[in-house]
């Protein structure tokens, strides 16, 4: 999964993830580049307040990733590229997120029955 905040590819990737999990599949998510920022613990559970709708809660991407991981235990695994994460200063991730060196990417691909690449860095 590639950069958020530039297109709807993160929305698409997580919609597909949800659909696959609901059908009983096991899914690995691998984040690259700025997508590694999605699971930072510093994001907290909610986005900053909406000045136009102060009392409404808007989930952070970390909260949404955690929601997915909690809803589908043992079938969803979330990996991130350590280099990309370090390169962007994203040091503290959700505890379920496993950072791997970019050289480990092929091992994740080999472990998957099918790989869908939705954007890069």
């Amino acid at each position, binding site marked *: 999964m590639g950069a*958020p*905040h*530039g*297109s*709807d590819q*993160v*929305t698409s990737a*997580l*919609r597909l993830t*949800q659909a696959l999990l609901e059908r009983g599949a096991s899914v690995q998510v691998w984040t690259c580049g700025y997508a590694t920022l*999605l699971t930072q613990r510093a994001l907290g559970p909610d*986005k*900053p307040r*909406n*000045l*136009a*709708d102060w009392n*409404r809660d*808007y*989930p952070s*991407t970390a909260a*949404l990733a955690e*929601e*997915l*991981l*909690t*809803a*589908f235990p043992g079938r969803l695994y979330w990996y991130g590229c350590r280099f990309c994460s370090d390169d962007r200063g994203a040091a503290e991730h959700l505890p379920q997120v496993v950072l791997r060196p970019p050289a480990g990417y092929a091992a994740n691909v080999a472990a998957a029955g099918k790989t869908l690449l939705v954007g890069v860095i």
Partner: protein
Amino acid sequence: MRHQEKADGRVLAIVERGYRGALEKQFFDELYLATELHRQLGGLDVLLRGQAVTYALDAPPVPPLRIGNRTVDTLTDPRQGLRTLLEAGVGVWAEEPDLAALGAAGSPDRLLAGIRIAREGETASRWTDYRMVCFL
């Protein structure tokens, strides 16, 4: 010329790229920023071009998304964003050639109420009337 005769120190904000992350941005999109710029800078006009002209077309609300066991009903809704801008007094135009590419240039009734159509180059010719031109 369907624009105001004089921009009177207003700011022109041009939005060309659309759909920049409905799930991660939610309310905090370029139109939310436009609302704040309108408030701070004393008056904004918005020109929608390119893919962003689709924001001007009326459509049902954005459907919610299921994530885990949660229903996320706070995805970015650009049409609601435009309605908020219009209610705040922001002028909103959609550029005709890009509407035409969608087959919508001849159907102004498909646009959200209050959005006007700008002819090609019409707004560019008025850049000098604006205090500031920004691409959002």
